[in-house]
């Protein structure tokens, strides 16, 4: 369900517009794809936007229908899914509203505003893929292999003491990948005092947007996007001066470097911490705060175990969740096998974990403790079950073949084989713990019991004791 809606998000970012005119801003240093997409109000665009919105609302309608239907089915269990469903719908509705406003905004009379900006353009570029609407651009798609190595180390020495919000210790590689963003300045070693420390309050950090359009009120996470948006409000916003970063153009005197502090007291990223490590950008602050000090409210709908506080993290995770998942006994997952093996080679006692659907009752790894006890029991139960049934099958057939010794013609009649085998089949198809792999072997074990009994009944009965 989520996946389907995911795919619709890019549609908003990449609104169906006429091809970009490269000649428009030849000296612009902006490299965001949207930068070149600018033009006057176009009724055709409006129409396509509106029809897109219509589709979108229909889809949402379907979704709500589906939820209503499902809720009727599972009355008892519905509670746990309620927040997720609400989230889903809210997210969808919000995006529809935003799109509606922005469509409408292009019709409004325009006015000029100076745009306050704090984030340097370079980080904006980096933030593109961490944003609310991942565009699936090449930036996000490729992860250089060497990243992983540093990530593993990262995990080993970065035991975050402030990780109080989530009881689970399920780091995923995906999560770490985005963590790099905030840790990137670790090696920077700016001398204290050489930079200005800003500390945003919790409310500020958790506010959905920081940049608001003064004309239409639309909120943006990035100033650059706001400036892009402003172009729709009139020609005066389309000048290179208005599109360029305000600071670098207007202020020629060097600004003091800005670094950010986390408002959470005791956090390493808090300015009062002994080994304070500042955060580079506001986005870093936001992601850091959400990841480490907030409840992880987004649960992966595929695995139902992984939780995230940043939506983008969830989406990155969902891209990989369930497929190509290399799992370690410690619970860490890897997107690549060599990363898993590197991890195992590095740590004592860690070993590759076999996906649960493959093991189904494998005697567990001690590392995982109680969680594995349950499947273990299932396995034993399973096993007993099979031997029980084989007794029946065995005795049944023993009589069968005994009878046939006297009657050589009956011995070879296919009917006899039919009854034996079908008996075995039926027994095992009833197995409640059945899965595709083991049911096959049980089937054989059942169907084979009987031939051995032709004369050796006591011996094989011993087996069952």
């Amino acid at each position, binding site marked *: 369900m989520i996946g389907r809606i995911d795919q619709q998000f890019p549609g908003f970012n990449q609104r169906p517009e006429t091809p970009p005119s490269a000649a428009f801003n030849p000296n612009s240093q902006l490299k965001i794809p949207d930068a070149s997409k600018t033009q006057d109000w176009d009724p055709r665009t409006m129409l396509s936007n509106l029809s897109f919105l219509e589709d979108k609302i229909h889809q949402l309608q379907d979704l709500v229908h589906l939820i209503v239907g499902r809720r009727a089915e599972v009355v008892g269990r519905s509670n746990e899914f309620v927040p997720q469903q609400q989230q889903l719908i809210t997210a969808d509705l919000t995006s529809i509203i935003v799109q509606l406003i922005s469509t409408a905004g292009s019709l409004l009379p325009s006015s000029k505003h100076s745009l306050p900006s704090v984030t340097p353009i370079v980080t904006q570029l980096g933030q593109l893929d961490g944003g609310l609407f991942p565009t699936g651009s090449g930036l996000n798609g490729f992860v*250089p292999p060497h990243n992983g190595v540093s990530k593993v180390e990262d995990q080993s020495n970065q035991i975050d003491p402030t990780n109080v919000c989530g009881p689970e210790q399920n780091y995923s590689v995906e999560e770490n990948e985005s963590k790099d963003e905030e840790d990137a300045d670790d090696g920077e070693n700016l001398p204290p005092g050489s930079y200005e420390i800003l500390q945003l309050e919790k409310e500020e950090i958790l506010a959905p947007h920081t940049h608001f359009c003064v004309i239409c009120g639309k909120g943006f996470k990035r100033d650059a996007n706001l400036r892009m948006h402003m172009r729709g409000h009139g020609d005066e916003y389309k000048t290179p001066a208005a599109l360029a970063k305000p600071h670098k153009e207007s202020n020629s005197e060097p600004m003091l470097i800005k670094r950010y502090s986390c408002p959470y007291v005791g956090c390493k990223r808090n300015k009062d911490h002994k080994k304070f490590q500042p955060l580079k950008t506001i986005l870093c602050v936001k992601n850091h705060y959400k990841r480490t000090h907030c409840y992880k409210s987004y649960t992966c709908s595929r695995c139902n175990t992984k939780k995230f506080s940043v939506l983008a993290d969830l989406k990155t995770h969902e891209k990989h969740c369930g497929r190509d998942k290399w799992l370690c006994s410690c619970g860490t997952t890897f997107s690549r*096998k*060599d990363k898993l*093996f590197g991890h195992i080679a590095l740590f004592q006692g860690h070993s590759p974990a076999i996906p649960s659907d493959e093991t189904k009752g494998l*005697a567990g790894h001690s590392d995982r403790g109680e969680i594995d006890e349950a499947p273990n029991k299932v396995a034993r139960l399973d096993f007993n079950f099979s031997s029980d049934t084989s007794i029946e099958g065995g005795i049944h057939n023993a009589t069968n073949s005994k009878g046939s010794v006297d009657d050589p013609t009956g*011995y070879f009649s296919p009917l006899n084989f039919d009854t034996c085998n079908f008996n075995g089949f039926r027994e095992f198809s009833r197995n409640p713990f059945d899965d595709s792999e083991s049911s096959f*072997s049980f089937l054989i074990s059942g169907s084979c019991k009987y031939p051995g009994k032709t004369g050796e009944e006591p*011996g094989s009965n011993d087996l069952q*004791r």
Partner: protein
Amino acid sequence: MNLLTKMKKPKQTHVPSTNYFDLLSEEIVFSILDFLDDNPLDKKSFSLVCKSFYTTESLHRRALKPLRSEHLTKILHRYPCITNLDLSLCPRIDDSSLTVISNVCKNMLRSIDLSRTKFFTHVGLSNLVLNCVNLVDIDLSNATELKDPAAAAIAEAKNLERLWLRRCKAITDIGIGCVAVGCKKLRLISLKWCLGIGDLGVGLIAVKCKEIRSLDLSYLPLYVKLWTEDLVTYAGLVITMPAVGLEITKNCLLPILELQYLEDLFLEGCFGIDDDSLAALKKGCKSLETLDMSSCQNVSHVGLSSLTSDTACLRQLILAYGSPVTLALADSLQKLSMLQSIKLDGCLVTCPGLKAIGNWCISLRELSLSKCLGVTDEGLSSLVTKHKDLRKLDVTCCRKITHVSIAHITNLCTSLTSLRMESCTLVSRESFVLIGQRCQCLEELDLTDNEIDDEGLKSISRCSKLSNLKLGICLNITDGGLAHIGLCCSQLIELDLYRSAGIMDTGILAIARGCPGLEMVNIAYCTEITDHSLMSLSRCSKLNTLETRGCPLITSLGLAAIAVGCKQLAKLDTKKCYNIDDAGMIPLAHFSQNLRQINLSYSSVTDVGLLSLASISCLQSMTILHLKGLTPSGLAAALLACVGLTKVKLQESFKSLLPRLLFEHLEARGCVFQWRDKVFQIIEMALRSTFYYLQAEVDPIFWKLQLEDVE
């Protein structure tokens, strides 16, 4: 032992109170029992003498090789001190069998062989490993169905030292990774043909199991590449990245060569290994004693010299089917001061290469040039000049060598114990006289397809230690020559006379008289041989393998004599013995209780004979093609009655004549069927009374001529 049984019984009835064996301590009886290893029936007779003998024997036995899994509980309770359990003869071992074993044997069990058995899963293995914590050896070879969960179950065997996983194709890096982490004490691991395991799994074994002595990685899909350059192509993009760190994860050879105790390394058929990767390693393995790099076609002397650079104690080097044996290769191996054995089978050999090997400072004990192209008199003669201590020499199919080479070899290498020279067709008759005159230490001699005659045999009969003699397709020998062998070579164990047409009953009689220890005899297509030969061979009580293919004069009478006399008979091939019928099967069924494998194709055996074989409890393999008298129902009865069958070769036609469920049932029991649909040619032709065709099939000279035509 049977004597003892007979003596003991009356004694006990007369004087029941005094048993002199009670005076002997258990240890002494145990050490007596240690000598009863030759025939398994001896121990059985011993245990049947009386209750105390029974108990003693039960306590004495350490190793068990049961035939069926049904009686495991009883057997294991009878023998409480079993440490080694070989289940390779059981056609079916399922999880319940393994659970029984694990519950009864518990801590006693140290070694278990599950190769060739099927049907058990990771659940059974897990039970076994959890209950038998002292397991040191596990052989899971050929368990092609086992997947990673099974390997993970094995990983719980913390005391495991030796693990064989040959042909476990479904196990992947993940599974072997679990083993690497769990079994820290591993000393030997064989992963031959484990096609699911690659660099990562192997690398992890080398990183985690530091005790490894022997590592078999033959035919693994390893892609040993070094990331020497900074440019790495990833998903079509070329990116610059540091190569540091990648080397360790990508190249599994590096951690292997760092293993401190590694002695044996088998890399046969690892096509991914090449000179570049080996040379880039710049590293050898110090402790290595045996190195097998057969069929590594991408490794030449460059990679080899890199790999053996630090290797001071290498004793055995196997380079079969590899790069050509040139001067460069020979020179690169010159430094190996401890080298004793080198195998170059199937390589292209140059004369300078052989000469350079001849110039090595060391003296080789073992040299194999089997099927090497380019071995000439000049090369071979100069090679042996330095290596006078040669014990084993294999020049099979070196077709260019002549009397000159043999003269040199026999002159210099007088302590040869094994000489294999099949199909050295240019070697003249006189050479074999030299072999007998000069190399009298010979124990193994393969003269298959050579020009040897009776004079040669007479000379060779001087090799009194001869135990293995192969005279197949030697068309010049007759009974006269063979009689000399029978007179002098009393230690003979194996004799191969395949298609040596000149041999008749008197020759075999001489052999049977003079060589009581014979275990294997092949008289296939010696068309003149009759029942008399079999009767004389029946006095060889240790005979376990007999092949009499295509001896049309042999009848059931001769076979009966063998059955009565040779109780150890395990393999019997009577294909195309048209005169063998049910009358031969009945004594066989009665006396040959050790028979495991039988080929009755083209014989006159019918339903009755086949069914009677069911009383042989250890019969496992049966080839029954083109039996005229065999009906579908008779076949079904026989197949059902022979409970231990694991392999049956059958005519394709029976597949449709019998219910599919029967075959499914038998397969579930552990039997594999091989279907053949060859035309019933020989008999058909014979029936058409075309003597010519029969002649073509059985007459060796005619057969050889045909062979040469094909060539």
